[in-house]
């Protein structure tokens, strides 16, 4: 075998490995998306707990419905002063908000994606309806041994807040266990942890904790009474339906 042939074989071998790994990473990310972006509708109760660095907590509670298109309706029940507020989030960054005291829904267009979402540690980018596969290029970092795959997600758009997200993916079920968000200075700025629980045939993230490492502030999201596939009609995701019947 000539040296040249050997070189060609080696190059093909390594390119091959790389493309197999890329293929693997994409498949893994797709599997994660399948769990995180459920193809069916979903409803339940949500508790949002904001905890500052002194341990002081603020609580919000709401009921929610969500469909496969990524449209979401939240109806807030706590705190008391904000009870009755309802929001309809549409995938294009538009939010309709119904505030009982004002009577009719108002359209809020969120143009600043990098801003924090309503005082939480999630940026609008973190709450996006588009799948991770559409927004990030995955690179498999570690797959051998252990209980999880480790992937780097590199943003495709230069408008992302992050330089990369490191995802720890459960090997058995392909849901994320932990994500680490690195800023453009390549410093780890945020970290999220996930606790998944199977409801029927679907995986549900019953607890998500997002921690802003710089601010030492965290947001805990607890989902309860979650039901999938309830055939929630499309009209429940319309502006007209935001205002409850009792208020009419």
């Amino acid at each position: 075998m000539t040296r040249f042939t050997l070189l060609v074989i080696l190059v093909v071998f390594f390119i091959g490995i790389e493309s197999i790994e890329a293929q693997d990473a994409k498949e893994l990310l797709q599997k994660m998306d399948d769990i995180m972006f459920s193809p069916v509708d979903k409803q339940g109760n949500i508790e949002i707990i904001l905890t500052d660095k002194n341990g002081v907590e603020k609580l919000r509670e709401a009921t929610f419905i969500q469909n496969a298109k990524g449209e979401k309706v939240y109806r807030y029940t706590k705190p008391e002063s904000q009870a009755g507020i309802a929001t309809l989030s549409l995938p294009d960054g538009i939010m309709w908000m119904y505030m009982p005291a004002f009577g009719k829904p108002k359209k809020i267009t969120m143009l600043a994606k990098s801003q924090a979402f309503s005082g939480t540690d999630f940026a609008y980018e973190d709450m996006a309806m588009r799948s991770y596969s559409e927004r990030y290029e995955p690179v498999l970092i570690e797959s051998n041994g252990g209980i999880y795959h480790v992937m780097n997600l590199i943003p495709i758009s230069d408008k992302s807040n992050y330089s990369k997200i490191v995802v720890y993916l459960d090997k058995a079920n392909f849901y994320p266990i932990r994500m680490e968000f690195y800023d453009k200075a390549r410093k780890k700025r945020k970290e999220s942890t996930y606790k998944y629980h199977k409801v029927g045939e679907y995986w549900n993230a019953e607890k998500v904790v997002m921690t802003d490492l710089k601010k030492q502030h965290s947001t805990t999201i607890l989902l309860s009474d979650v039901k999938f596939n309830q055939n929630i009609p499309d009209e429940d995701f319309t502006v007209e339906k935001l205002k409850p019947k009792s208020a009419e």
Partner: protein
Amino acid sequence: MKELASKILKYRWIIIIVVLSITAFLGYQIKNMQINSDVISSLPDDDPDAFLFKKIGQNFGGNKVGMVILEADNIFNNEVLAHVQLITDSLSMMDGISTVTSISNIIDIRGGENGFEVGQLIDEYALPYSQEELDRLKNRVLEKDMYRGVIVSIDETATLIIFTLFDDSDLQEMAGRVKRMTHSLNLPENLYYAGLPMMVGEIADLIAADLIVLLPIAFLVIALVLALSFRTVRGVVLPMLTATIAIIWTLGFMVLGGYEMSMVTNNIPLLLLAVGSAYTIHVINKINQVKENDFRKAMVVAMTYIFIPVALTALTTVVGFISFVFEAYLVMIRDFGIFSALGALVSAFLALFFAPAIMYAFSSKKRKTADHSELSKDSVLSNYLLRPLTKLLFNHPKYTLTTWSLLIILSIGGIFLIERNVDVKDYFQKDSPARKAEEIMIEKFGGSKPIFVLFKGDMQNPEVLNTMLRTEEQIKKDPHVESSQSIANLIVEMNDALGEGRKIPDEQDKVEQLWFLIDGNPILQQLVNDDLDEGLIISKFAADNSDATRKFASDMAQFLEVNSTEDCEIILTGMPFIDLKMNSSLLTSQIRSLSIAIIALIILVGFFMRSLAKGLYATAPIIAAIVILFGVMGVAGIPLNIATVLVASVALGIGVDYSIHVITYFNYSYNGHNLGEALEDTIMVSGKAIFINVVSVSAGFLVLVFSEMVPLQFFGILMALSMVGSGLAALTLLPVILVLVHRKHLTIND
């Protein structure tokens, strides 16, 4: 005294070892010395204005807000905006910084038909490029109160990048990091820094620079003067050694007591270098004066004589320094009083115990004739200055008295011209970046001095919010206030964006639900507390003259009297009002601390000399010197400020020493008949020590003209002036008083 002197010589090694051990221990502590350049932390807690100001700064995070000022020909330029964005993004990524707001990321709420858009003033990923886009941005900035003159100057040449530090951030360290980071970007625009963290950082750098650069220079200058005066190694080394040890002890005690170095206590090392060396100079001088060949005997005689004068001069110095403790407004001035007094005591202790112990331990026990050269009466100083001076004073006492009287009368006229100045910007030299930053803030951003109106009430109650709006309108009626910020403003903006009009909603429900939109926004921390029962109007005051501040305070007091209720208590505070207090306290504390010091000195000196009259004679020269000092300040336009307010009492404490030495020696020499001889002896012996001391101390203080801080430059000049004045008074005015008082006892020979 003789016994004590003998014991000092007997136990010399024990004294040396103990002093050196304590010095090593306290010197080791100095490594923990912290610099605290935060003027706010020095405001007194017993003043309601200052207390509230500090509390608001802590509770609402105002003390943690810093600003980078970017100055360019025109802010509305793609390249300039890109640079603003670069600074903004770089600051955002720094640890210790919580939020960053600039034109490149500030939120913009635009009302529409059915709702509103929440976005940024500038699309961070597509900065305005074409002239049309830039003009659109400019119009938007100039039409909105929340941007115009707040984030971009009205003349479009400066913009602010405002950052907030986390509560636990070290102001000084962060200021340094922010500066280093922005410098490393190598931007073509001018960058300046404002806000408390940056100001604190700037002052800390200046304090450190002064300590590192000026102290060694002062050390060398004083050593040089001593070398020229004494022309012996001992004459240089001993005073410098005792002064250095006194500085080490004092700074060590400061650290042990949990005190920090401030822009006033920063003066202590230099002061002690001057004072500490003076006591030892007198001790050495006296030992040299004693005509005794046995060194031990000579030392005992000298120490027996010098103990009381040095102890007394130390006590009088302590009186001058400690007088600040009772009357100063700023905590750092009180600290200065305490530790400079302690340092003076330590210096005297070392001069009386340690210096003789060292001299005796390291000298040959037989005196060489060469030693007498130090006390030679035939020196240039003696022949060409002191002896002619004695003749002049003795032969023409009334000329001298008339000259002094004229000087005093002229100076009294000058006193009425003295101005007061507490403006922080004047701490910095004219061309310094910190001063330029202050000037830009005043000229282009409506001032740098914050005003706070604290509201205690339900922050979601429309009535309270409407009162807040009315208060803001009232504040803005003053020509020196351009803009203000409050939660009421924010609610009005959102209500307007929802199409409900530019007003506070009538129902509390609406306010509470609007709150949903801003909940968690970092700006809320600066405007309301967590329990929503306290809120703040933040504004700035551009005038730096007291009359404008007084008028504003009185207008606001009338308004608050009518509008402050049980459900909505309104309290006004702010830096301009604190400046006003500091300003008036400068005068009162000056008068009171001087009065306390003068009375205490007369009593103290009178008690030690067993004659109230002698107490009066001793203080007369220094009072004359201080009157002249004030006269010069008035005529030269040197204002009374936080540093120059120290001069009179410090000068009183140090300057009276000269008179004490003159009177003590005169008492020692005068036997009731030999007035002329006693006078000559006094001036020849004490005069030399006083002359050397005045020159060395003044030279030491004059080093402060190279200080980076303007008040300290004035402090140095005025201290030198006071030293020369009080030395001159002790050698001319005091002898003349003594001659006139004792003239009736003149013998025919005299």
